[in-house]
């Protein structure tokens, strides 16, 4: 008598990669726009980035149905917060809320790999990186999704402190300028697109700074 296996899974992986980099007074959040299932492409124009608050963006890869549900939930919670506090949620506050929301479903998780990016209460760039059940940490840069294994080592190489012999290694806020960070993101995605089949089509870049939020797009390989 062999153990019964499930013949159906509630989850699916829609692929894609996300990246976020924090600067001194800006934050860059980027994700590709390809949505796939198995070896098929569902659409080339699906955004993985959403605005949660004035200075807080979230990019999520994984199962897009769970991602969408999570985005809606956080948006509703933010509205309630605004009604009660008469102001927008700060990025650190939203970070904690996301963590709690994810852990709430610890035993039937959101299949969503998130990166939160924005400005903290002092106007400095901040990036928070999560696993599927809400474990999170504030970092200077992060990537999630199918291309993260290709992207993360490259970001470490570029953004982590020069000498690995210098302990503790700091990956806090990068000294790069905003345009340099955007160029880095474009380079990183172009490379990831080459080798990761789930990443490609188009790159959506969102930059959050004191002036507000601006979006940029770049074409990626479509194969």
């Amino acid at each position: 008598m062999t153990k019964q296996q499930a013949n159906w899974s509630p989850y699916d992986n829609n692929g894609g990669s996300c990246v976020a980099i924090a600067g001194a007074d800006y934050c860059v959040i980027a994700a590709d726009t390809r949505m796939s299932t198995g070896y098929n492409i569902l659409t080339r124009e699906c955004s993985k980035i959403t605005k949660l608050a004035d200075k807080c963006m979230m990019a999520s890869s994984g199962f897009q149905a769970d991602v969408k549900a999570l985005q809606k939930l956080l948006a509703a919670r933010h509205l309630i917060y605004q009604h009660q506090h008469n102001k927008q949620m700060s990025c650190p506050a939203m970070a904690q809320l996301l963590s709690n929301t994810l852990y709430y479903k610890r035993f039937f998780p959101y299949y969503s790999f998130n990166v939160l990016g924005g400005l903290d209460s002092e106007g400095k760039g901040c990036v928070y990186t999560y696993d599927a059940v809400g474990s999170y940490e504030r970092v200077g840069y992060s990537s999630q999704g199918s291309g993260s294994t290709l992207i993360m080592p490259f970001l470490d190489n570029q953004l982590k402190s020069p000498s690995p012999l210098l302990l503790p290694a700091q990956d806090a806020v990068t000294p790069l300028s905003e345009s340099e960070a955007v160029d880095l993101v474009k380079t990183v995605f172009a490379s990831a697109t080459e080798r990761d089949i789930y990443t490609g089509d188009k790159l959506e870049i969102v930059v959050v700074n004191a002036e507000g939020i601006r979006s940029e797009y770049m074409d990626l390989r479509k194969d």
Partner: protein
Amino acid sequence: MFRNQYDTDVTTWSPAGRLFQVEYAMEAVKQGSAAIGLRSKTHVILACVNKASSELSSHQKKIFKVDDHIGVAIAGLTADGRVLSRYMRNECINYNFTYESPLPVGRLVVQLADKAQVCTQRSWKRPYGVGLLVAGLDESGAHLYYNCPSGNYFEYQAFAIGSRSQAAKTYLERRFENFMGSSREDLIKDALISVRETLQGEKLKSSICTVAVVGVGEAFHILDQETVQQLIDSFELVREDEPPAPEAGDAVADQSEASAPVAEEGAAPMDI
């Protein structure tokens, strides 16, 4: 209204077929400070009088944003009003979550009315002691509703509730036929004049009144004090008991309404 043997419970009918507790709850609304609402085809304005209990305290919040397209002004027990506003906000958020579209105002007021009705038919509850003027926009246009503690609701072109609201209602009755086609500015002006009517001679200034607007292309928001004061000044709504000062001579707005004392209201139609 006087005490009788049928008014102890909300669940007791009087021989004349009245529920006295419900009627007493409506009295509570009349005790609260005035709230006024009026609407045109595209905009709804809410205005209310803010009376602080003493100079040292802040005044109570009487206008609440419920959603981008709905706001509410209350009169009566403000604590009950706060609780109902929270309920309304929740309903809007939940509806939006499920249907990805704004909750139609007409639906919201029905839910509110049903909630109020429950309190008139449970022996362990009491009716909400607050009247709500619900202002909102939906696909069918701009709406103003009044929800009362009895669980009834009505749609209005313009209405006033709370203490001395009759003075405002008299003014509104004279003017309401023009409201449908009014511009946003004229509507606000009429709202401010209505508020002034309830003040019985006290000077109208932005520190004692709050104004909120919702309209096509304009999310519900409360106007800040400076804006309101500028509007009061520009409409020259401030009453002058002495003869008008010389520098007021170059102002365009009507002098007549600025100098007419309160006692004459209702006597001569003011051409505003």
